[in-house]
């Protein structure tokens, strides 16, 4: 028989004034397996703990039940205490007779009775406890940051500055992200490039940072501290090891295609740098558009290159590397408004720009060198309509959330127009104006002072009339239809997660919310973590935010990563799922239920009668499993069980209550 010791805490009078410890002791002595029972004023105190230790050696106890305050208070204390006694720390159960008994009940007899029940349940449960051993896992001291926008850049720099190796991975050929496309940043109106470019250069030059552009995550395995990531290095056709970025090759390329960076407002060659300040400042060949790679005759760039960097034979490669932590910083994209807003012409009208297109337009390095002109005829607009919440806050258009940054950049756009083209009439259609941020409200006020006219209401229709865009909508303050003839319309469109987020999160095992943003582990308390251990979040991949918030979150994620990588190894909780392979039929229901991708099917060698066969069974990755137990309830046969909360332990508790 097990030799259980039951220890009842008075907690001063907190417990003893309502629950009669003597009754508990007397009842405990009647229970099977209980070898010793005693009470004390404060079990958690030094003498209390000593008393437990002494009783263990004196009575040869092998399991300890403590009837006291909530296990959330002192479970750790008592486990630590057991560590030094030779009893496994998990041979401990706590009956919560304070928070869930003496403090919430008045009738002493009935409270004592309930306390006896709770103690009995703990005694029954512990009779089925088994020793558990925490595993320590080594930690690879290297972080992977996915996404080279400002969030990824900031996180990478912070981690690298703390002395850890970082791989910064970017899908495009240059880091910089959306921030590099912006002209000025609200509310201070400092030039976006001026503040982001130095950071881009820093990551390119940092000794601890390996920049991997034109790369995508292809596979992820492993768990916190020990991820193995397969990275696809897309063919660049230019040897970046030799290339100096002189730019000669770009000059003679016969191909002209729409520039992604300028959002179609200008063109670029097939061998190109994403933008002039790109980091790395080296070109790649766009294989979709390169004449030679499409099978045609050309090869001009190869001839031009003085160093022979161009290699048309280049191929995609997969690089595998190990990381201790991963930061997701994949950012956002703007919704594809033309497909959603037929009433705005569905993209037919050239002079309707998205906010980002306007950013490129107003940017001195942009296609118009900063002149605000209509794309259709190059004329300066006299009337500009800015429409906010295009796609945001509109469940009918699929996005019920607020994109957070648009109020401010609408104001900024108005400000920029009024500044560059004084006298222009600017109308801003809005639902609400939200300016929570340092200096934001002041900036908004200033814009109104500048002359921007705010019209409360949605624009219901935009159509062309005599070379102008008629914006019709309701002024909900006046309650009447309004119609503005504009020369240019700027749509402040909603943010949505960048493409590929679904694939990436499913590789990582991270969850997404209803809007496809990556789900944080806790909305308040763990905003920079995913629920997958070792995978962190930075920037707009988690939800719309502006630059200050993005950078703050990136630094927060970096701090988490640094905290993790500073350890050489970590202990994992032993209270995780375990598989009894003999019972497991490999049906795989558990695989889909695990939020951490901790359960996978594993092929094992087995026998079927006399035949040697291979069959699949569930396999729990102890590094990934967080011990929620969701898989165990889905396992019909009971092959999966949760250590520390085994089926038989819980059933014992149920049985004990009903005695």
């Amino acid at each position, binding site marked *: 028989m097990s030799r259980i010791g039951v220890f009842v805490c008075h907690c001063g009078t907190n417990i003893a004034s309502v629950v009669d410890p003597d009754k508990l002791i007397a009842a405990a002595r009647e229970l099977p397996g209980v070898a010793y029972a005693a009470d004390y004023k404060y079990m958690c105190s030094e003498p209390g703990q000593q008393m437990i230790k002494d009783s263990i050696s004196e009575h040869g106890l092998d399991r300890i039940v403590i009837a006291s305050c909530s296990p959330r208070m002192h479970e750790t204390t008592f486990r630590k205490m057991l560590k030094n006694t030779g009893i496994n720390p998990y041979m401990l159960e706590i009956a919560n007779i304070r928070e869930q008994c003496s403090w919430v009940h008045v009738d002493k007899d009935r409270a004592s009775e309930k306390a006896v029940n709770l103690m009995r349940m703990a005694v029954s449960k512990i009779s089925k406890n088994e020793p558990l051993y925490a595993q320590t896992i080594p930690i690879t001291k290297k972080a992977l940051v996915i996404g080279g926008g400002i969030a990824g850049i900031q996180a990478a720099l912070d981690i690298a500055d703390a002395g850890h190796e970082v791989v910064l991975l970017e899908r495009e050929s240059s880091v910089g992200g959306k921030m590099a496309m912006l002209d000025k940043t609200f509310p201070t109106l400092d030039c976006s490039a001026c503040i982001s470019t130095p950071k881009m250069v820093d990551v390119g030059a940092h000794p601890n940072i390996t920049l991997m552009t034109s790369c995508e995550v292809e596979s992820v395995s492993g768990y916190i501290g020990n991820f193995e990531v397969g990275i696809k290095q897309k063919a660049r056709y230019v040897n970046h090891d030799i290339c100096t970025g002189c730019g000669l090759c770009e000059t003679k390329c016969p191909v002209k295609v729409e520039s992604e960076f300028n959002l179609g407002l200008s063109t670029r060659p097939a061998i190109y740098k994403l933008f002039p300040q790109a980091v790395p400042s080296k070109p790649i060949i766009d294989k979709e558009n390169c004449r030679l790679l499409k099978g045609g005759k050309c090869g001009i760039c190869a001839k031009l290159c003085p160093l022979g960097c161009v290699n048309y034979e280049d191929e995609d490669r997969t690089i595998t590397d190990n990381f201790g932590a991963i930061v997701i910083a994949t950012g956002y994209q703007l919704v594809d408004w033309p497909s959603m807003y037929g009433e705005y012409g569905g993209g037919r009208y050239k002079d309707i720009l998205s906010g980002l297109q306007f950013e490129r337009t107003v940017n001195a390095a942009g296609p118009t060198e900063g002149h605000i002109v209509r794309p259709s005829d190059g004329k300066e607009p006299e009337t500009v309509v800015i429409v906010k919440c295009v796609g945001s806050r509109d469940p009918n258009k699929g996005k019920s959330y607020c994109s957070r940054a648009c109020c401010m950049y609408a104001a900024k756009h108005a400000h920029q127009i009024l500044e560059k083209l004084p006298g222009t009439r600017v109308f801003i259609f809005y639902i609400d104006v939200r300016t929570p941020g340092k200096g934001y409200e002041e900036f908004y006020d200033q814009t109104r002072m500048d002359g921007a006219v705010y019209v409360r209401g949605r624009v219901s229709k935009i159509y062309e009339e005599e070379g102008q865009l008629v914006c019709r909508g309701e002024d909900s303050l006046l309650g009447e239809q309004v119609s503005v003839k504009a020369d240019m319309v700027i749509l402040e469109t909603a943010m949505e997660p960048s493409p590929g987020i679904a694939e990436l999160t499913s590789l990582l095992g991270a969850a997404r919310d*209803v809007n496809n943003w990556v789900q944080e582990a806790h909305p308040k308390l763990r905003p920079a973590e995913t629920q997958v251990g070792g995978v962190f979040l930075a920037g707009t991949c988690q939800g719309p935010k502006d630059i200050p918030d993005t950078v703050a979150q990136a630094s927060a994620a970096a701090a988490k990563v640094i905290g993790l990588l500073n350890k050489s190894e970590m202990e994992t909780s032993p209270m995780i799922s375990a598989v009894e392979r003999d019972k497991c039929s490999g*049906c795989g229901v558990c695989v889909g239920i695990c939020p951490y991708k901790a359960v996978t099917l594993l092929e094992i060698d087995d026998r079927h009668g006399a035949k040697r*066969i291979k*069959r699949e069974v569930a396999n729990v990755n102890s590094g990934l499993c967080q011990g929620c137990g969701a898989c165990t309830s889905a396992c*019909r*046969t*009971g092959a999966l069980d949760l250590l520390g909360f085994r089926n038989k332990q819980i059933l014992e508790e149920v049985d004990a209550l009903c005695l």
Partner: protein
Amino acid sequence: MSEKQEKMRQCAEKLLRDGEAGYVIGWGETRFDDRTTPIFVEDPAGAGAFVWNEYAINSLAKYLLDDKYPDKKIGLFTRGCESRAINRLLKDNQIKRENVYLIGVPCDGKKSDRCTLCRERNPILYDVLLWTPEDDPPPAAGRFDRVKDIEAMSPDERYVYWGETYDSCIRCYACRNVCPACNCRECYADMSKTGFQGKQHSRSDNQIFGVTRAFHVGDRCIECGECERVCPMNLPIMGQTQKILKDINELTGEYECGMDATSENYLGRFDLDDKDEFM
């Protein structure tokens, strides 16, 4: 009828002769004209033993689990119900498609109560189809009628109804053993030591078996009706599983199992905006 039977025999014979299949599972005679029994023919010369008549009732799919790792393909005469059962087994990762050779035999309806709910006479999965598909029976009016009848009772009446039903259960587990959704390596009910299922015959333990089994298979039930057919006590077993199907249908719309081998089962997934009745 005999023409089809002949086709079946020829097909089986050829499969066996060509070595395409190690053996073929079909129906064979018994000592009673109105009964057949599943037979397993290895020898091409024995293919003449297969019969096809209105008493070829037993679903054959579950036998695939007896031989999960065959050296050669297993030939199986496959009707609508077998094919759905095979989808069930495929989805549950119990058999490999390449291990079976499915001989499609559109069903003309059999003399069994289990066929009253049938909606798929034609195999939805097969390697060869022996004859032209049959017209599917008109959608069984009132798929969930019996469930509705029971739902209409008061809680106490329902308890008595099921209690008395389970009083007669002899726990022979025929329902489980014939069920394609019951494909655990070891059934929870055979492990009385784990504490979920007592082995004694009491109303309580019988009911717990009934409800647990229903819960285990409910969202994966293909409604083949085999459980009720095999029950020696003629218990209305599907009244339980169909209750779950009915609820799922009400909660998420049209829900049927075994129509393909990939759809995730209802309890194996979730939607963020699932209906929530728990405050």
